[in-house]
């Protein structure tokens, strides 16, 4: 395994120690509970915004802690949901008295641990907590009889938009409503051109012959829905964007916030090239790109590949998008 590591079992704590050292003025890291929060502590009277999940998706989530986005995040083992105690600590840390919105990506582990955390807090007279589950991955069918769709790139956009609303003073139910609305108008689709290696496992998550790709992957190094011949960037853009546009029901004249996300091991050069193709597909559909992000925002360790996320935009979404944000992973206007 070709990785920068000491003991693979310590990768998360050691990375958190590095994160604390790299952002001493901005972040506070509870090494015991692996909770990252804003150095200033919770903002009194502001709804707290919390997320968390397995590690290996950096900068998500801890890298999105800061003014304009999250108040706290907790970090599980690589690709493993945090345990309830971690969520409890993050939720308590983020509470400024106005309640906490807990953004949970829709994975069985994340949802179950978040539910247990909510149960624990309810018995402990903790802060008021609203859970919002993100499930934007169109590769997976939405169904009541399954685990449902995965939460992927839409989570980043949601954390930015809802973070701005919380900063503006929106109350807990208003933030929760906005979050559910953003989730409802966001869809994603991803592709892998190569696997990644979980440090504790030491071997790649799958094998892929040259000239093949995994279409419809999530962010856990897992294989996708289908293994198909590697297409050109143009073909891949169509394969990613078209299902998203269809599922969102986008029409000529609609506008979107676009995230062209790298999975971690694909160079920015290729991501910009892909963005050019994505934009061309959207152009052809008459959909305007109101705002965009191109880069590694929700990764799967060093997986090669990318995902496309579209958020149907209106003036309000764009306004909240443009609001200042100052986190290690996303920063503007501050």
């Amino acid at each position, binding site marked *: 395994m070709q990785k920068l590591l000491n003991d693979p079992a310590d990768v998360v704590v050691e990375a958190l120690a590095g994160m604390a050292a790299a952002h001493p003025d901005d972040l506070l890291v509870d090494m015991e509970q692996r909770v990252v929060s804003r150095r200033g502590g919770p903002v009194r009277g502001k709804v707290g915004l919390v997320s968390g999940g*397995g590690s290996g998706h950096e900068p998500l989530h801890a890298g999105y802690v800061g003014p304009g986005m999250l108040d706290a995040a907790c970090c*599980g*083992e*690589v*690709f*493993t*949901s*945090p*345990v*309830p*105690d971690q969520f409890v600590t993050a939720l308590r840390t983020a509470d400024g008295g106005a309640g906490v919105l807990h953004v949970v990506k829709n*994975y*069985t*582990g994340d949802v*179950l*641990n978040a*539910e*247990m955390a909510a149960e624990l807090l309810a018995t402990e007279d903790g802060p008021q907590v609203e859970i919002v589950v993100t499930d934007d991955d169109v*590769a*997976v*069918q939405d169904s009541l*009889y*399954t*685990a449902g769709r*995965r939460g992927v790139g839409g989570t980043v956009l949601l954390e930015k938009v809802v973070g701005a609303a919380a900063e503006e003073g929106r109350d807990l139910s208003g933030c929760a409503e906005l979050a559910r609305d953003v989730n409802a108008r966001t869809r994603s689709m991803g592709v892998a051109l190569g696997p990644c290696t*979980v440090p*504790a*496992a030491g*071997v790649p*998550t*799958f094998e892929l012959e040259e000239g093949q790709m995994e279409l419809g992957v*999530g962010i*856990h*190094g*897992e*294989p996708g*829905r*289908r293994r198909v011949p590697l297409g050109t960037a143009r073909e891949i853009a169509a394969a990613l964007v078209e299902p998203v546009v269809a599922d969102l029901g986008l029409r000529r004249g609609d506008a979107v916030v676009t995230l062209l996300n790298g999975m971690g091991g694909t160079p920015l050069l290729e991501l910009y090239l892909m963005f050019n193709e994505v934009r061309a597909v959207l152009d052809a559909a008459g959909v305007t790109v109101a705002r965009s992000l191109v880069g590694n925002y929700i990764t799967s360790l060093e997986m090669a590949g990318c995902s496309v996320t579209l958020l149907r935009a209106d003036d309000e979404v764009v306004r909240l998008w443009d609001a200042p944000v100052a986190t290690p992973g996303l920063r503007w206007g501050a």
Partner: protein
Amino acid sequence: MTTLTAFQAWLADCSAVIEQQAEHLTELDRAIGDGDHGTNMARGFRRCAELAEEEQFASIDAYLKKVGMTLVGTVGGASGPLYGTFFLRLAGPLSAAPDVDARPLAQALRAGVDGIVARGRAEVGDKTMYDAFAPALEAFESALAAGSGTAECLRAAAEAAARGRDGTEPLVARKGRASYLGERSAGHVDPGASSAVLILEAAARTLG
């Protein structure tokens, strides 16, 4: 009659066998999940096995509650809350008893398995650990009804669990991470069903 010491031996056995099978469990999870099931389980059960040395437990149920909480607090992922809930609920019917025979054990097992369903909302055939636990519970109860003792009931449960686990292979997953793979999840044994068998086999070795 099964004593606290036996339950502690069970967890020690679980830890040993899971440690030993961790790579295999991870391998199964790599095929249709995210390749962490072995690591998750080993981390959690290692902690559980240490409990007996660190602390004096007043009763079986106190011990099993602590095991459940430890699993909830260390495993993470989907299996953490599910196995954690299993052990927490297992404790309920055994409260206060200094030792137990097959009947309360059956009640405990039913409570534990119900807990898994309450948390995970899985049905038989969803390709999860429940596909091992459901037939195991049924086999335990049938054996009990037929007059068997604890040892025999547990052996029947472990064997049924193993058949249930094997039965997950052709299934298309509907719950957990493997469900994202759709049709591609067929042809692989479910990792959680496999770890469930390890735990029940350990029970048959230690609680009987």
